[in-house]
């Protein structure tokens, strides 16, 4: 039951919306007040999620060819924090990494690493992946710089 209550920011957001609805209507029927706005807000959020997903990163600037030193750093982090669930080839706990930098927006990849709980709740692609793999991508306390290095490692892998 522990990781069912992780999405704190989401819960807070929903409470806020529910709360403001109640203030305006002063409804005595709490249950009804709780349900309708949150359902609406979820649908609304999904529809408006940008290409980079939900998280701190909006854009990733890259050099060509990929920066090998940075990729090497990324490889080490990937080995310790990601490889228990992702292999380059073939489905494992999560999807294969081969081709991921071609399939996905680079900022989206970083946000998936940095903010997995919110991504699988709000981003339509991440939601679908969760439904397919049935395992919540775990938060691994990766910094933004480290996530950037992982992306470089994945880019290098995709150019080879």
């Amino acid at each position, binding site marked *: *039951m*522990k990781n069912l209550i992780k999405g704190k920011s989401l819960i807070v957001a929903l409470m806020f919306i529910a709360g403001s609805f109640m203030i305006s209507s002063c409804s005595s029927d709490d249950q009804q007040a709780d349900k309708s706005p949150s359902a609406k807000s979820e649908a609304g959020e999904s529809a408006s999620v940008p290409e980079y997903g939900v998280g701190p990163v909006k854009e990733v600037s890259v050099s060509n060819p990929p920066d090998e030193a940075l990729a090497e750093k990324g490889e080490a982090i990937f080995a310790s924090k990601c490889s*228990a669930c992702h292999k380059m080839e073939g489905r*494992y*706990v999560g999807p294969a990494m081969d081709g991921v930098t071609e399939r996905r927006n680079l900022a989206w990849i970083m946000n998936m690493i940095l903010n997995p709980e919110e991504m699988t709740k709000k981003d339509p692609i991440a939601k679908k992946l969760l439904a397919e793999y049935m395992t919540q991508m775990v938060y*691994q*306390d990766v910094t933004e710089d480290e996530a950037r290095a992982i992306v470089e490692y994945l880019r290098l892998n995709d150019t080879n």
Partner: protein
Amino acid sequence: MTSCNVKSKGSPDGTDDAARKVYVAPGEHDEFYAFLSGGFNGQVSVYGMPSGRHLKMIPVFSQHAENGYGYSEESKALLNTTYGNIPWDDLHHPKLSRTDGMADGRFLFVNGNNTPRIARIDLTTFETVETLEIPNSAGNHCSPYPTNNTEYVVAGTRFSVPISDEGGIEDIELEKLNEYYRGSISFIKVDDKSGEMDLEFQILVPGFDYDIANGGKGPSEDWIFFTAYNSEQATTLKEVNASLHDKDFVAAINWKKAAEYVKQGKYREIPAEYFHNKMDKKTHVASSEVKKKVKVISPEECPDIMYLIPTPKSPHGVDVDPSGEFICVSGKLASMVPVHSFSNMLKAIENKDHVDVFESIPILKYESVLAAEVKDIGLGPLHTEFDGKGNAYSSMFVSSEIVKWRLKDFEILDRIPVYYSVGHLMIPGGDTHKPDGKYLVAMNKITKDRYLPTGPELCHSAQLIDISGDKMKMLLDFPTIGEPHYAQAIKADIVAPKSKKIYRLDENEHPHATLKEADTRVERDGNIVRVYMTAIRSHLAPDNIEGIHLGDTVYFHVTNLEQDWDVPHGFAVKGARNAEILIMPGETKTLEWIPTKTGVTPFYCTDFCSALHQEMQGYARVSPEGANVPIKYWLGDPKK
């Protein structure tokens, strides 16, 4: 929500008001952390106040099968003593570390009463990180009491024993015991930064029973006060024979002066074997060191460090008010609370206002030191704390009540019944320079009809009382675990922001850590098989292991690769004769398994971690001794 003016139903007995005061809405946090000792369960339990919600159980002196404390290879050493590995103790008094007379939220010190020990709990992790055995002690009840800046934590003996000058406790005829026995008061230096403890010296004191202590503050901060009962020096039928005198003592010890004598070299060093066990911050592995000597001083050779103040009768609590002037003593068998004055005590010392001398220790005149007697306070006064607004609150064991009285004129202001037989009470910061006089917790010894019956044994009951107004108001009953002897509470916002969420993988220096799945492996060294395993939602790596034989000792070194808050994994093996282990994110823990049966043996994660938790499992194959089955292991395809 806020704009809707919902009318309170309001009931005539005021319970609605009480409910509102203790109600902490779902998702909200309590205002205080309260740490209640577990007494005979050897643990500390943490509650939220005012809700009374149980937040955590911290195992200290007792093995805790729930998370493997005391069973895991890493934590076993914390229970080492000169008597061997002791899996239990009787934990009585929690005391928070202090800076400038105020609880600073860094550490919680607790005592083990039975096999004398002091432990330190780190409040960033709520884990026991150090235990120190106390030599020359028996019944380590009078501890662990800190001085104002945690310069020292002191520990005193409840049982006096024949402490030998050659070290150890002597074997002598019990009929002659009181000719030989002595008490000891240990001064444990606490390192400013790390909090680490070191037994610096002991004062050998007359053979009484030392019960409770408390450090002075403000003008009295160089002193620490102890209750000493059994001034009769009885050794049998103490129930009667230790209650003959009309007065026992408060022992006042000038710890600064004692420490100076030690610095000047006025000590003897005697042999004393004791264990010092520490959890290493980087490896998370506890190790033991055996110390061989202790410095002792005596009041005879070091004058002016100790005075005795006569005090009625079998005193228990000795509590110094926030100003540092009043020393309030609760004599279990008296029907009043004597309040000694620190400034009077200094005058009596200066004027040599002695009525007698006990083994070179001056006994001051009761009337000269006394400020007042709070008369007709109730039956069986046990302990007193303060609200910082000029009032004192004393618990009455026999008459089952809390009595509020005023320090200004020693007038009794209010009383409230508690259910039943209250021992200690606690006000957040009520033993410090600046109490937070909002709540009081009464820790009751007898529960009887307060809760639904649960057979002959009932949980002890605590009661939360509102002390913010003139009249005390009962707010809440809540069951506690074990037997809380004493408690401490601290504002949550001092502790909560520093609470650790994970252990960082890149700081894990455990000698058997596996920091990435690619490094998982199984190694044999003679009869020792080491499994370097990782855990992450939702698999253990490796999850298929062959080549274990009867006669092997297997160590599962499990590293939790998660780096997210509140995602421990558990690990258990069928037939393991110890416990499971719970591994926190980023941590490595080790379970020993000595297989006793051949066959395919399952292991699995015990902490529901994800939708695929039930799949987080594996097999170990155990073959007969000498069978030709090599070590082989894998996760996924059997490649290796």
